[in-house]
Protein backbone atom coordinates (compact mmCIF):
# COMPACT_ATOMS: atom_id res chain seq x y z
CA UNK A 1 0.00 0.00 0.00
CA UNK A 2 2.68 2.39 1.05
CA UNK A 3 4.82 1.31 -1.87
CA UNK A 4 2.03 1.95 -4.33
CA UNK A 5 1.43 5.38 -2.90
CA UNK A 6 5.06 6.20 -3.21
CA UNK A 7 5.15 5.08 -6.81
CA UNK A 8 2.03 7.05 -7.59
CA UNK A 9 3.47 10.21 -6.15
CA UNK A 10 6.67 9.74 -8.07
CA UNK A 11 4.71 9.39 -11.26
CA UNK A 12 2.81 12.55 -10.42
CA UNK A 13 6.04 14.37 -9.72
CA UNK A 14 7.49 13.26 -13.02
CA UNK A 15 4.48 14.42 -14.94
CA UNK A 16 4.42 17.67 -13.04
CA UNK A 17 8.06 18.37 -13.68
CA UNK A 18 7.68 17.56 -17.33
CA UNK A 19 5.11 20.25 -17.91
CA UNK A 20 6.81 22.71 -20.18
CA UNK A 21 4.85 25.81 -21.21
CA UNK A 22 6.81 26.26 -24.39
CA UNK A 23 6.30 22.71 -25.54
CA UNK A 24 2.66 22.88 -24.54
CA UNK A 25 2.10 26.03 -26.61
CA UNK A 26 3.95 24.55 -29.58
CA UNK A 27 1.98 21.35 -29.48
CA UNK A 28 -1.41 22.97 -29.24
CA UNK A 29 -0.70 25.63 -31.83
CA UNK A 30 0.27 22.83 -34.24
CA UNK A 31 -2.94 20.99 -33.42
CA UNK A 32 -4.87 24.17 -34.15
CA UNK A 33 -3.10 24.87 -37.43
CA UNK A 34 -3.57 21.27 -38.51
CA UNK A 35 -7.25 21.37 -37.71
CA UNK A 36 -7.69 24.55 -39.74
CA UNK A 37 -5.72 23.16 -42.68
CA UNK A 38 -7.55 19.87 -42.79
CA UNK A 39 -11.00 21.30 -42.38
CA UNK A 40 -10.20 23.95 -44.98
CA UNK A 41 -9.03 21.42 -47.52
CA UNK A 42 -12.01 19.19 -46.80
CA UNK A 43 -14.23 22.19 -47.41
CA UNK A 44 -12.56 22.86 -50.75
CA UNK A 45 -13.11 19.25 -51.78
CA UNK A 46 -16.71 19.14 -50.64
CA UNK A 47 -17.65 22.62 -51.85
CA UNK A 48 -18.92 21.58 -55.31
CA UNK A 49 -20.95 18.80 -53.77
CA UNK A 50 -22.63 21.20 -51.36
CA UNK A 51 -23.06 23.66 -54.18
CA UNK A 52 -24.75 21.12 -56.39
CA UNK A 53 -26.88 19.84 -53.54
CA UNK A 54 -28.15 23.33 -52.85
CA UNK A 55 -28.94 23.96 -56.52
CA UNK A 56 -30.78 20.78 -57.33
CA UNK A 57 -33.41 21.22 -54.67
CA UNK A 58 -34.25 24.75 -55.74
CA UNK A 59 -37.29 25.47 -57.80
CA UNK A 60 -37.07 27.40 -61.03
CA UNK A 61 -38.07 30.66 -59.32
CA UNK A 62 -35.29 30.37 -56.78
CA UNK A 63 -32.43 30.44 -59.25
CA UNK A 64 -33.43 33.90 -60.48
CA UNK A 65 -33.96 35.17 -56.96
CA UNK A 66 -30.68 36.71 -55.77
CA UNK A 67 -31.81 36.66 -52.16
CA UNK A 68 -31.75 32.88 -52.18
CA UNK A 69 -28.18 31.78 -51.66
CA UNK A 70 -27.73 28.30 -50.27
CA UNK A 71 -30.96 27.07 -48.78
CA UNK A 72 -33.77 26.80 -51.34
CA UNK A 73 -36.94 28.70 -50.52
CA UNK A 74 -39.27 26.51 -52.54
CA UNK A 75 -38.02 23.04 -51.92
CA UNK A 76 -38.78 20.76 -54.85
CA UNK A 77 -37.60 17.67 -56.68
CA UNK A 78 -38.60 19.01 -60.09
CA UNK A 79 -35.12 19.30 -61.53
CA UNK A 80 -34.41 15.75 -60.50
CA UNK A 81 -37.53 14.59 -62.22
CA UNK A 82 -36.65 16.44 -65.43
CA UNK A 83 -33.09 15.14 -65.43
CA UNK A 84 -34.33 11.66 -64.64
CA UNK A 85 -36.52 11.67 -67.72
CA UNK A 86 -34.05 13.45 -69.99
CA UNK A 87 -31.34 10.98 -69.10
CA UNK A 88 -33.70 8.08 -69.59
CA UNK A 89 -32.28 7.06 -66.26
CA UNK A 90 -33.49 3.46 -65.73
CA UNK A 91 -32.09 2.17 -69.05
CA UNK A 92 -28.86 4.18 -69.03
CA UNK A 93 -28.31 3.31 -65.40
CA UNK A 94 -28.81 -0.38 -66.13
CA UNK A 95 -26.36 -0.43 -69.02
CA UNK A 96 -23.79 1.62 -67.07
CA UNK A 97 -23.95 -0.67 -64.09
CA UNK A 98 -23.83 -3.77 -66.30
CA UNK A 99 -20.67 -2.59 -68.05
CA UNK A 100 -19.06 -1.51 -64.78
CA UNK A 101 -19.83 -4.78 -63.01
CA UNK A 102 -18.68 -6.95 -65.90
CA UNK A 103 -15.40 -5.11 -66.31
CA UNK A 104 -14.76 -5.06 -62.57
CA UNK A 105 -15.29 -8.79 -62.25
CA UNK A 106 -13.12 -9.74 -65.21
CA UNK A 107 -10.47 -7.22 -64.37
CA UNK A 108 -10.05 -8.47 -60.82
CA UNK A 109 -9.76 -12.06 -62.01
CA UNK A 110 -7.33 -11.46 -64.84
CA UNK A 111 -5.18 -8.96 -62.95
CA UNK A 112 -4.86 -11.08 -59.81
CA UNK A 113 -4.00 -14.16 -61.87
CA UNK A 114 -1.31 -12.36 -63.82
CA UNK A 115 0.00 -10.65 -60.70
CA UNK A 116 0.35 -13.96 -58.87
CA UNK A 117 2.22 -15.34 -61.82
CA UNK A 118 4.57 -12.37 -61.82
CA UNK A 119 5.05 -12.29 -58.07
CA UNK A 120 5.59 -15.91 -57.17
CA UNK A 121 5.82 -18.18 -60.18
CA UNK A 122 9.00 -17.02 -61.84
CA UNK A 123 9.70 -18.31 -65.30
CA UNK A 124 12.10 -17.39 -68.02
CA UNK A 125 11.29 -13.95 -69.32
CA UNK A 126 8.83 -13.04 -66.59
CA UNK A 127 10.90 -10.00 -65.72
CA UNK A 128 10.69 -8.83 -69.30
CA UNK A 129 6.93 -9.43 -69.41
CA UNK A 130 6.48 -7.42 -66.24
CA UNK A 131 8.36 -4.59 -67.87
CA UNK A 132 5.77 -4.91 -70.64
CA UNK A 133 3.03 -4.46 -68.03
CA UNK A 134 4.63 -1.18 -66.99
CA UNK A 135 4.90 -0.28 -70.66
CA UNK A 136 1.14 -0.70 -71.12
CA UNK A 137 0.58 1.84 -68.34
CA UNK A 138 2.85 4.35 -70.01
CA UNK A 139 1.46 4.21 -73.55
CA UNK A 140 -1.55 6.52 -73.91
CA UNK A 141 -4.61 4.58 -75.01
CA UNK A 142 -5.09 7.07 -77.86
CA UNK A 143 -2.03 5.67 -79.56
CA UNK A 144 -3.74 2.37 -80.23
CA UNK A 145 -7.21 3.86 -80.60
CA UNK A 146 -7.65 3.44 -84.37
CA UNK A 147 -6.49 -0.19 -84.62
CA UNK A 148 -8.54 -1.06 -81.55
CA UNK A 149 -11.61 0.48 -83.12
CA UNK A 150 -11.09 -1.24 -86.44
CA UNK A 151 -10.29 -4.44 -84.61
CA UNK A 152 -13.70 -4.57 -82.98
CA UNK A 153 -15.45 -3.21 -86.04
CA UNK A 154 -14.15 -6.12 -88.13
CA UNK A 155 -13.53 -8.57 -85.33
CA UNK A 156 -11.76 -11.72 -86.33
CA UNK A 157 -9.65 -14.40 -84.69
CA UNK A 158 -6.79 -15.19 -87.07
CA UNK A 159 -9.01 -15.10 -90.12
CA UNK A 160 -11.24 -17.90 -88.84
CA UNK A 161 -14.51 -16.01 -88.91
CA UNK A 162 -14.05 -14.62 -92.40
CA UNK A 163 -13.19 -18.12 -93.54
CA UNK A 164 -16.60 -19.40 -92.47
CA UNK A 165 -18.86 -16.46 -93.17
CA UNK A 166 -17.06 -15.02 -96.15
CA UNK A 167 -17.34 -11.51 -94.74
CA UNK A 168 -14.59 -9.47 -93.23
CA UNK A 169 -15.04 -10.23 -89.52
CA UNK A 170 -18.06 -9.41 -87.39
CA UNK A 171 -19.08 -6.11 -85.89
CA UNK A 172 -18.61 -6.13 -82.13
CA UNK A 173 -19.33 -2.45 -81.65
CA UNK A 174 -22.45 -1.59 -79.67
CA UNK A 175 -22.15 -4.82 -77.72
CA UNK A 176 -20.53 -5.55 -74.39
CA UNK A 177 -17.92 -7.80 -76.02
CA UNK A 178 -15.13 -5.20 -76.33
CA UNK A 179 -15.37 -4.52 -72.62
CA UNK A 180 -15.40 -8.20 -71.73
CA UNK A 181 -12.50 -8.99 -74.02
CA UNK A 182 -10.27 -6.19 -72.91
CA UNK A 183 -10.91 -6.62 -69.20
CA UNK A 184 -10.63 -10.41 -69.28
CA UNK A 185 -7.23 -10.13 -70.91
CA UNK A 186 -5.97 -7.46 -68.58
CA UNK A 187 -6.02 -4.64 -71.10
CA UNK A 188 -8.85 -2.60 -69.60
CA UNK A 189 -8.72 0.79 -67.93
CA UNK A 190 -5.49 0.98 -65.93
CA UNK A 191 -5.19 -2.80 -65.74
CA UNK A 192 -1.44 -2.40 -65.59
CA UNK A 193 -1.77 -0.43 -62.39
CA UNK A 194 -3.99 -3.13 -60.88
CA UNK A 195 -1.52 -5.85 -61.79
CA UNK A 196 1.17 -3.75 -60.16
CA UNK A 197 -0.87 -3.32 -56.94
CA UNK A 198 -1.69 -7.04 -56.72
CA UNK A 199 1.89 -8.06 -57.45
CA UNK A 200 3.30 -5.85 -54.72
CA UNK A 201 0.77 -7.24 -52.29
CA UNK A 202 1.49 -10.87 -53.13
CA UNK A 203 5.18 -10.21 -52.78
CA UNK A 204 4.58 -8.79 -49.33
CA UNK A 205 2.81 -11.93 -48.07
CA UNK A 206 5.13 -14.29 -46.15
CA UNK A 207 6.57 -17.11 -48.20
CA UNK A 208 5.96 -19.60 -45.38
CA UNK A 209 2.22 -19.27 -45.94
CA UNK A 210 2.52 -20.58 -49.46
CA UNK A 211 5.10 -23.22 -48.59
CA UNK A 212 3.02 -24.71 -45.79
CA UNK A 213 0.12 -25.00 -48.22
CA UNK A 214 2.33 -26.95 -50.62
CA UNK A 215 3.48 -29.24 -47.81
CA UNK A 216 -0.14 -29.93 -46.94
CA UNK A 217 -0.69 -31.04 -50.49
CA UNK A 218 -2.16 -28.03 -52.25
CA UNK A 219 -1.41 -27.59 -55.90
CA UNK A 220 -0.53 -24.20 -57.30
CA UNK A 221 -4.07 -23.25 -58.40
CA UNK A 222 -5.52 -24.38 -55.08
CA UNK A 223 -2.92 -22.39 -53.18
CA UNK A 224 -3.81 -19.34 -55.19
CA UNK A 225 -7.56 -19.59 -54.65
CA UNK A 226 -7.58 -20.81 -51.05
CA UNK A 227 -4.52 -19.19 -49.51
CA UNK A 228 -3.38 -16.19 -51.52
CA UNK A 229 -6.68 -14.64 -52.59
CA UNK A 230 -8.35 -14.67 -49.14
CA UNK A 231 -5.22 -12.99 -47.79
CA UNK A 232 -5.26 -10.36 -50.49
CA UNK A 233 -8.60 -8.88 -49.49
CA UNK A 234 -7.22 -5.36 -48.84
CA UNK A 235 -5.65 -5.19 -52.28
CA UNK A 236 -8.81 -6.67 -53.75
CA UNK A 237 -11.02 -4.00 -52.20
CA UNK A 238 -8.81 -1.26 -53.58
CA UNK A 239 -8.83 -2.78 -57.04
CA UNK A 240 -12.57 -3.53 -56.97
CA UNK A 241 -13.43 0.01 -56.01
CA UNK A 242 -11.03 1.65 -58.47
CA UNK A 243 -11.99 -0.61 -61.30
CA UNK A 244 -15.70 -0.08 -60.79
CA UNK A 245 -15.48 3.65 -60.33
CA UNK A 246 -13.10 4.32 -63.19
CA UNK A 247 -15.25 2.31 -65.54
CA UNK A 248 -18.28 4.19 -64.25
CA UNK A 249 -16.66 7.56 -64.90
CA UNK A 250 -15.01 6.60 -68.15
CA UNK A 251 -16.32 8.24 -71.28
CA UNK A 252 -13.43 7.46 -73.63
CA UNK A 253 -13.87 3.72 -74.15
CA UNK A 254 -17.60 3.99 -73.89
CA UNK A 255 -17.85 6.55 -76.66
CA UNK A 256 -15.39 4.54 -78.71
CA UNK A 257 -17.29 1.26 -78.56
CA UNK A 258 -20.89 2.27 -78.08
CA UNK A 259 -22.95 4.56 -80.26
CA UNK A 260 -26.51 3.35 -79.85
CA UNK A 261 -26.26 1.96 -76.34
CA UNK A 262 -26.31 4.93 -74.00
CA UNK A 263 -24.53 5.10 -70.68
CA UNK A 264 -24.61 7.87 -68.13
CA UNK A 265 -21.14 9.24 -68.90
CA UNK A 266 -22.02 9.84 -72.56
CA UNK A 267 -25.63 10.80 -72.00
CA UNK A 268 -24.84 13.67 -69.62
CA UNK A 269 -23.18 16.04 -72.13
CA UNK A 270 -25.88 15.34 -74.71
CA UNK A 271 -28.59 16.22 -72.25
CA UNK A 272 -26.79 19.40 -71.22
CA UNK A 273 -26.55 20.49 -74.85
CA UNK A 274 -30.21 19.80 -75.53
CA UNK A 275 -31.34 22.03 -72.68
CA UNK A 276 -28.91 24.86 -73.21
CA UNK A 277 -30.77 26.32 -76.17
CA UNK A 278 -33.56 28.25 -74.52
CA UNK A 279 -32.58 28.90 -70.91
CA UNK A 280 -28.94 28.46 -69.84
CA UNK A 281 -29.62 28.99 -66.14
CA UNK A 282 -32.30 26.35 -66.05
CA UNK A 283 -30.12 24.06 -68.13
CA UNK A 284 -27.35 24.51 -65.60
CA UNK A 285 -29.72 23.44 -62.86
CA UNK A 286 -30.83 20.36 -64.77
CA UNK A 287 -27.22 19.54 -65.53
CA UNK A 288 -26.37 19.61 -61.86
CA UNK A 289 -29.31 17.38 -61.07
CA UNK A 290 -28.12 14.97 -63.75
CA UNK A 291 -24.63 14.98 -62.30
CA UNK A 292 -26.02 14.24 -58.87
CA UNK A 293 -27.86 11.27 -60.34
CA UNK A 294 -24.60 10.25 -62.01
CA UNK A 295 -22.45 10.31 -58.88
CA UNK A 296 -25.08 9.18 -56.39
CA UNK A 297 -24.47 5.42 -56.89
CA UNK A 298 -20.72 5.92 -56.52
CA UNK A 299 -21.21 7.98 -53.38
CA UNK A 300 -23.51 5.39 -51.86
CA UNK A 301 -21.05 2.63 -52.72
CA UNK A 302 -18.23 4.65 -51.18
CA UNK A 303 -20.21 5.18 -47.97
CA UNK A 304 -20.27 1.43 -47.47
CA UNK A 305 -16.82 0.53 -48.69
CA UNK A 306 -15.09 3.62 -47.31
CA UNK A 307 -14.09 2.08 -43.98
CA UNK A 308 -12.48 -0.99 -45.55
CA UNK A 309 -10.97 1.10 -48.26
CA UNK A 310 -9.22 3.54 -45.93
CA UNK A 311 -8.08 0.63 -43.79
CA UNK A 312 -6.90 -1.34 -46.78
CA UNK A 313 -4.78 1.59 -47.94
CA UNK A 314 -2.67 1.11 -44.86
CA UNK A 315 -2.09 -2.51 -45.68
CA UNK A 316 -1.97 -2.55 -49.44
CA UNK A 317 1.47 -2.99 -50.76
CA UNK A 318 1.31 -0.15 -53.24
CA UNK A 319 4.72 0.61 -51.82
CA UNK A 320 7.53 -1.04 -53.73
Amino acid at each position, binding site marked *: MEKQLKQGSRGWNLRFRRFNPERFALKWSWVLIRAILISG*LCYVILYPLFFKLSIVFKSRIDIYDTTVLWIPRNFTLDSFRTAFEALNYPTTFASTIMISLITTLFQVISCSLAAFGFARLRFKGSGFLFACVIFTI*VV*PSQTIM*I*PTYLNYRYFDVMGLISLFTGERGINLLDTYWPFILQSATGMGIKSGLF*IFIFRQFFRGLPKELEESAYIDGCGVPQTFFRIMLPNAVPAMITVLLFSFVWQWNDSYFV*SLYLTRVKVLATQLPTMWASFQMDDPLYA*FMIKNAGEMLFIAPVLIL*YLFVQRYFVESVERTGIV*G
Partner: protein
Amino acid sequence: MKIIQLTLATKRSLYGVLFVAPWLFGFIFLFAIPLYESFVYSLSELKLAMGGFETTFKGLAYYKELFTVHPTFNRLLVDSTVEMLLNVPSIVIFSLFAATLLNQKFRGRGIARAIFFLPVLLSASVLSLEMSNGLGDVVSGITGDTNGKAGEMFSMGGKELMFLLMDAGLPLQLIGFIVDFVTQIYQVISKSGVQILIFLAALQSISPSLYEAAKIEGTTGYEAFWKITFPMISPMLLTNIVYTIIDSFTNNKLNKLIMDTAFQSLNFSQSAAMAWVYFAMTSLILVVAVGLISRKVFYHD
Protein backbone atom coordinates in the same frame (compact mmCIF):
# COMPACT_ATOMS: atom_id res chain seq x y z
CA MET B 1 2.99 -45.70 -70.06
CA LYS B 2 5.49 -43.38 -68.65
CA ILE B 3 4.41 -40.11 -67.09
CA ILE B 4 6.93 -37.39 -67.62
CA GLN B 5 8.36 -36.32 -64.29
CA LEU B 6 8.80 -32.58 -64.00
CA THR B 7 10.89 -30.92 -61.34
CA LEU B 8 9.11 -28.60 -58.97
CA ALA B 9 10.81 -25.58 -60.47
CA THR B 10 9.71 -26.46 -64.02
CA LYS B 11 6.21 -27.18 -62.83
CA ARG B 12 6.02 -23.84 -61.11
CA SER B 13 7.34 -21.96 -64.08
CA LEU B 14 4.81 -23.75 -66.30
CA TYR B 15 2.08 -22.67 -63.92
CA GLY B 16 3.54 -19.19 -64.08
CA VAL B 17 3.08 -19.12 -67.84
CA LEU B 18 -0.44 -20.44 -67.37
CA PHE B 19 -1.34 -17.73 -64.87
CA VAL B 20 0.08 -14.98 -67.02
CA ALA B 21 -1.44 -16.43 -70.20
CA PRO B 22 -4.69 -14.40 -70.26
CA TRP B 23 -2.75 -11.19 -69.84
CA LEU B 24 -0.15 -12.26 -72.38
CA PHE B 25 -2.87 -13.04 -74.87
CA GLY B 26 -4.36 -9.59 -74.38
CA PHE B 27 -0.96 -7.98 -74.53
CA ILE B 28 -0.16 -9.51 -77.88
CA PHE B 29 -3.53 -9.19 -79.58
CA LEU B 30 -4.97 -6.07 -77.98
CA PHE B 31 -1.80 -4.12 -77.37
CA ALA B 32 1.35 -5.10 -79.26
CA ILE B 33 -0.28 -5.75 -82.64
CA PRO B 34 -2.52 -2.63 -82.48
CA LEU B 35 0.52 -0.58 -81.51
CA TYR B 36 2.36 -1.83 -84.58
CA GLU B 37 -0.71 -1.39 -86.79
CA SER B 38 -1.27 2.13 -85.58
CA PHE B 39 2.28 2.97 -86.60
CA VAL B 40 1.64 1.46 -90.02
CA TYR B 41 -1.60 3.43 -90.38
CA SER B 42 0.17 6.65 -89.52
CA LEU B 43 2.51 6.01 -92.43
CA SER B 44 -0.17 5.15 -94.96
CA GLU B 45 -3.50 6.32 -96.23
CA LEU B 46 -6.45 4.42 -94.86
CA LYS B 47 -9.63 4.26 -96.92
CA LEU B 48 -12.87 2.75 -95.74
CA ALA B 49 -14.20 0.58 -98.53
CA MET B 50 -17.02 -1.87 -98.96
CA GLY B 51 -16.83 -4.42 -96.15
CA GLY B 52 -13.45 -3.33 -94.89
CA PHE B 53 -10.62 -0.89 -95.37
CA GLU B 54 -7.56 -0.48 -97.55
CA THR B 55 -4.20 1.03 -96.91
CA THR B 56 -1.73 2.61 -99.31
CA PHE B 57 1.75 3.56 -98.22
CA LYS B 58 2.41 7.30 -97.95
CA GLY B 59 5.62 7.61 -95.96
CA LEU B 60 6.04 10.47 -93.55
CA ALA B 61 3.51 12.70 -95.34
CA TYR B 62 1.06 12.78 -92.43
CA TYR B 63 3.74 13.72 -89.93
CA LYS B 64 4.94 16.50 -92.18
CA GLU B 65 1.40 17.77 -92.62
CA LEU B 66 0.91 17.71 -88.88
CA PHE B 67 3.78 20.01 -88.12
CA THR B 68 3.61 22.34 -91.10
CA VAL B 69 -0.02 22.50 -92.23
CA HIS B 70 -2.30 21.58 -89.33
CA PRO B 71 -3.69 24.76 -87.72
CA THR B 72 -3.86 23.84 -84.03
CA PHE B 73 -1.78 20.75 -83.44
CA ASN B 74 1.55 22.41 -82.66
CA ARG B 75 0.02 24.88 -80.25
CA LEU B 76 -2.01 22.25 -78.43
CA LEU B 77 1.01 20.01 -78.09
CA VAL B 78 3.13 22.77 -76.60
CA ASP B 79 0.27 23.97 -74.42
CA SER B 80 -0.49 20.63 -72.88
CA THR B 81 3.20 19.94 -72.30
CA VAL B 82 3.78 23.27 -70.56
CA GLU B 83 0.66 22.84 -68.48
CA MET B 84 1.84 19.42 -67.44
CA LEU B 85 5.30 20.68 -66.51
CA LEU B 86 3.69 23.29 -64.26
CA ASN B 87 1.14 20.95 -62.76
CA VAL B 88 3.34 18.02 -61.87
CA PRO B 89 5.43 19.76 -59.17
CA SER B 90 2.40 21.33 -57.52
CA ILE B 91 0.44 18.09 -57.50
CA VAL B 92 3.33 16.08 -56.10
CA ILE B 93 4.22 18.66 -53.44
CA PHE B 94 0.62 19.05 -52.41
CA SER B 95 0.00 15.32 -52.19
CA LEU B 96 3.12 14.82 -50.07
CA PHE B 97 1.94 17.60 -47.78
CA ALA B 98 -1.57 16.18 -47.54
CA ALA B 99 -0.27 12.68 -46.91
CA THR B 100 1.96 13.89 -44.07
CA LEU B 101 -1.02 15.67 -42.56
CA LEU B 102 -3.28 12.66 -42.85
CA ASN B 103 -0.63 10.37 -41.44
CA GLN B 104 -0.66 12.10 -38.06
CA LYS B 105 -2.91 11.00 -35.26
CA PHE B 106 -5.89 13.22 -34.59
CA ARG B 107 -9.56 12.90 -33.97
CA GLY B 108 -11.68 12.38 -37.06
CA ARG B 109 -8.77 11.09 -39.11
CA GLY B 110 -10.91 8.42 -40.73
CA ILE B 111 -13.42 10.98 -41.97
CA ALA B 112 -10.71 13.33 -43.20
CA ARG B 113 -9.08 10.49 -45.14
CA ALA B 114 -12.38 9.42 -46.61
CA ILE B 115 -12.97 12.97 -47.84
CA PHE B 116 -9.47 13.32 -49.27
CA PHE B 117 -9.89 10.16 -51.33
CA LEU B 118 -13.23 11.32 -52.67
CA PRO B 119 -11.76 13.07 -55.76
CA VAL B 120 -10.31 9.73 -56.89
CA LEU B 121 -13.80 8.36 -57.19
CA LEU B 122 -15.74 11.21 -58.69
CA SER B 123 -14.86 12.09 -62.22
CA ALA B 124 -13.00 15.37 -62.42
CA SER B 125 -15.56 16.94 -64.72
CA VAL B 126 -18.30 16.48 -62.17
CA LEU B 127 -16.30 17.70 -59.21
CA SER B 128 -14.91 20.78 -60.87
CA LEU B 129 -17.02 23.87 -61.17
CA GLU B 130 -16.30 24.38 -64.87
CA MET B 131 -15.13 27.91 -64.55
CA SER B 132 -14.21 28.08 -68.20
CA ASN B 133 -16.55 28.69 -71.16
CA GLY B 134 -18.53 31.50 -69.60
CA LEU B 135 -20.21 29.41 -66.98
CA GLY B 136 -18.88 31.67 -64.25
CA ASP B 137 -21.62 34.13 -65.10
CA VAL B 138 -24.28 31.50 -64.85
CA VAL B 139 -22.90 30.39 -61.53
CA SER B 140 -22.77 33.90 -60.16
CA GLY B 141 -26.34 34.42 -61.29
CA ILE B 142 -27.37 31.47 -59.23
CA THR B 143 -25.46 32.12 -56.06
CA GLY B 144 -26.19 35.83 -56.10
CA ASP B 145 -23.87 38.77 -56.46
CA THR B 146 -22.88 39.09 -52.83
CA ASN B 147 -20.55 36.19 -53.35
CA GLY B 148 -18.95 37.73 -56.38
CA LYS B 149 -18.46 35.18 -59.08
CA ALA B 150 -18.63 31.90 -57.29
CA GLY B 151 -16.50 30.35 -59.98
CA GLU B 152 -13.75 32.83 -59.26
CA MET B 153 -13.91 32.37 -55.55
CA PHE B 154 -10.36 31.13 -55.37
CA SER B 155 -8.82 33.38 -57.96
CA MET B 156 -10.00 36.49 -56.09
CA GLY B 157 -7.68 35.48 -53.31
CA GLY B 158 -5.02 34.96 -55.96
CA LYS B 159 -4.75 38.63 -56.84
CA GLU B 160 -4.36 39.72 -53.25
CA LEU B 161 -1.82 37.00 -52.69
CA MET B 162 0.15 38.22 -55.68
CA PHE B 163 0.39 41.76 -54.29
CA LEU B 164 1.38 40.39 -50.91
CA LEU B 165 4.17 38.30 -52.40
CA MET B 166 5.36 41.17 -54.56
CA ASP B 167 5.64 43.35 -51.46
CA ALA B 168 7.60 40.57 -49.81
CA GLY B 169 10.09 40.91 -52.66
CA LEU B 170 9.94 37.45 -54.18
CA PRO B 171 11.08 36.94 -57.78
CA LEU B 172 8.26 37.25 -60.31
CA GLN B 173 8.55 33.73 -61.72
CA LEU B 174 8.21 32.24 -58.28
CA ILE B 175 5.21 34.45 -57.56
CA GLY B 176 3.64 33.30 -60.79
CA PHE B 177 4.12 29.68 -59.79
CA ILE B 178 2.70 30.15 -56.29
CA VAL B 179 -0.28 32.16 -57.50
CA ASP B 180 -0.97 29.60 -60.19
CA PHE B 181 -0.89 26.94 -57.54
CA VAL B 182 -3.30 28.79 -55.28
CA THR B 183 -5.75 29.66 -58.04
CA GLN B 184 -5.66 26.12 -59.35
CA ILE B 185 -5.90 24.52 -55.94
CA TYR B 186 -9.14 23.01 -57.01
CA GLN B 187 -7.68 21.13 -59.97
CA VAL B 188 -4.63 20.23 -57.94
CA ILE B 189 -6.66 18.68 -55.15
CA SER B 190 -8.97 16.82 -57.46
CA LYS B 191 -6.02 15.35 -59.36
CA SER B 192 -3.93 14.27 -56.40
CA GLY B 193 -6.10 11.56 -54.85
CA VAL B 194 -4.12 8.53 -56.00
CA GLN B 195 -0.86 10.29 -55.23
CA ILE B 196 -1.94 10.97 -51.65
CA LEU B 197 -2.85 7.31 -51.36
CA ILE B 198 0.55 6.17 -52.57
CA PHE B 199 2.39 8.57 -50.27
CA LEU B 200 0.26 7.58 -47.32
CA ALA B 201 1.02 3.92 -47.84
CA ALA B 202 4.71 4.80 -48.15
CA LEU B 203 4.68 6.84 -44.96
CA GLN B 204 3.10 3.99 -43.08
CA SER B 205 5.71 1.54 -44.20
CA ILE B 206 8.55 3.49 -42.57
CA SER B 207 9.60 1.66 -39.44
CA PRO B 208 8.87 3.69 -36.25
CA SER B 209 12.16 2.51 -34.75
CA LEU B 210 13.97 4.88 -37.11
CA TYR B 211 12.13 7.83 -35.59
CA GLU B 212 12.70 6.54 -32.09
CA ALA B 213 16.43 6.22 -32.64
CA ALA B 214 16.51 9.69 -34.16
CA LYS B 215 14.58 11.11 -31.24
CA ILE B 216 17.04 9.65 -28.78
CA GLU B 217 19.80 11.34 -30.71
CA GLY B 218 17.89 14.58 -30.36
CA THR B 219 16.52 15.37 -33.82
CA THR B 220 13.72 17.86 -34.24
CA GLY B 221 10.64 17.04 -36.27
CA TYR B 222 11.91 19.16 -39.14
CA GLU B 223 15.19 17.28 -39.31
CA ALA B 224 13.42 13.97 -39.00
CA PHE B 225 11.33 14.81 -42.03
CA TRP B 226 14.24 15.68 -44.28
CA LYS B 227 16.67 13.05 -43.01
CA ILE B 228 14.33 10.11 -42.48
CA THR B 229 10.93 10.56 -44.09
CA PHE B 230 12.07 12.13 -47.32
CA PRO B 231 14.77 9.59 -48.24
CA MET B 232 12.55 6.70 -47.20
CA ILE B 233 9.69 7.74 -49.44
CA SER B 234 11.84 8.93 -52.33
CA PRO B 235 11.15 5.78 -54.42
CA MET B 236 7.46 6.59 -54.12
CA LEU B 237 8.23 10.16 -55.07
CA LEU B 238 9.51 8.83 -58.37
CA THR B 239 6.46 6.59 -58.78
CA ASN B 240 4.19 9.52 -58.09
CA ILE B 241 5.90 11.82 -60.54
CA VAL B 242 5.63 9.19 -63.24
CA TYR B 243 1.99 8.57 -62.40
CA THR B 244 1.19 12.28 -62.41
CA ILE B 245 2.83 12.76 -65.81
CA ILE B 246 0.88 9.86 -67.29
CA ASP B 247 -2.33 10.95 -65.62
CA SER B 248 -2.04 14.51 -66.87
CA PHE B 249 -1.85 13.12 -70.38
CA THR B 250 -5.07 11.17 -70.11
CA ASN B 251 -7.47 14.07 -70.12
CA ASN B 252 -6.45 17.12 -72.05
CA LYS B 253 -7.41 18.96 -75.19
CA LEU B 254 -4.95 17.05 -77.33
CA ASN B 255 -6.77 13.80 -76.63
CA LYS B 256 -9.99 15.38 -77.74
CA LEU B 257 -8.33 16.59 -80.93
CA ILE B 258 -7.04 13.10 -81.66
CA MET B 259 -10.47 11.66 -81.14
CA ASP B 260 -12.24 14.30 -83.21
CA THR B 261 -9.80 13.91 -86.08
CA ALA B 262 -10.54 10.21 -86.18
CA PHE B 263 -14.29 10.11 -85.74
CA GLN B 264 -15.56 13.46 -86.93
CA SER B 265 -13.29 14.28 -89.85
CA LEU B 266 -12.70 10.53 -90.36
CA ASN B 267 -9.03 11.13 -90.97
CA PHE B 268 -7.75 7.96 -89.35
CA SER B 269 -4.16 8.21 -90.51
CA GLN B 270 -3.79 11.78 -89.37
CA SER B 271 -5.16 10.82 -85.99
CA ALA B 272 -2.76 7.90 -85.71
CA ALA B 273 0.15 10.18 -86.59
CA MET B 274 -0.97 12.64 -83.92
CA ALA B 275 -1.19 9.87 -81.38
CA TRP B 276 2.32 8.77 -82.22
CA VAL B 277 3.79 12.25 -81.89
CA TYR B 278 1.95 12.53 -78.63
CA PHE B 279 3.28 9.19 -77.43
CA ALA B 280 6.82 10.19 -78.41
CA MET B 281 6.41 13.40 -76.41
CA THR B 282 5.15 11.52 -73.35
CA SER B 283 7.97 9.03 -73.41
CA LEU B 284 10.56 11.75 -73.93
CA ILE B 285 9.33 13.64 -70.86
CA LEU B 286 9.12 10.44 -68.86
CA VAL B 287 12.63 9.37 -69.78
CA VAL B 288 14.04 12.79 -68.88
CA ALA B 289 12.13 12.95 -65.60
CA VAL B 290 13.01 9.42 -64.53
CA GLY B 291 16.63 9.88 -65.58
CA LEU B 292 16.98 13.05 -63.56
CA ILE B 293 15.20 11.88 -60.45
CA SER B 294 16.24 8.25 -60.17
CA ARG B 295 19.81 9.35 -59.49
CA LYS B 296 18.70 10.99 -56.26
CA VAL B 297 16.39 8.22 -55.12
CA PHE B 298 17.44 6.34 -52.02
CA TYR B 299 16.69 2.62 -51.86
CA HIS B 300 16.56 1.19 -48.39
CA ASP B 301 17.20 -2.43 -49.23
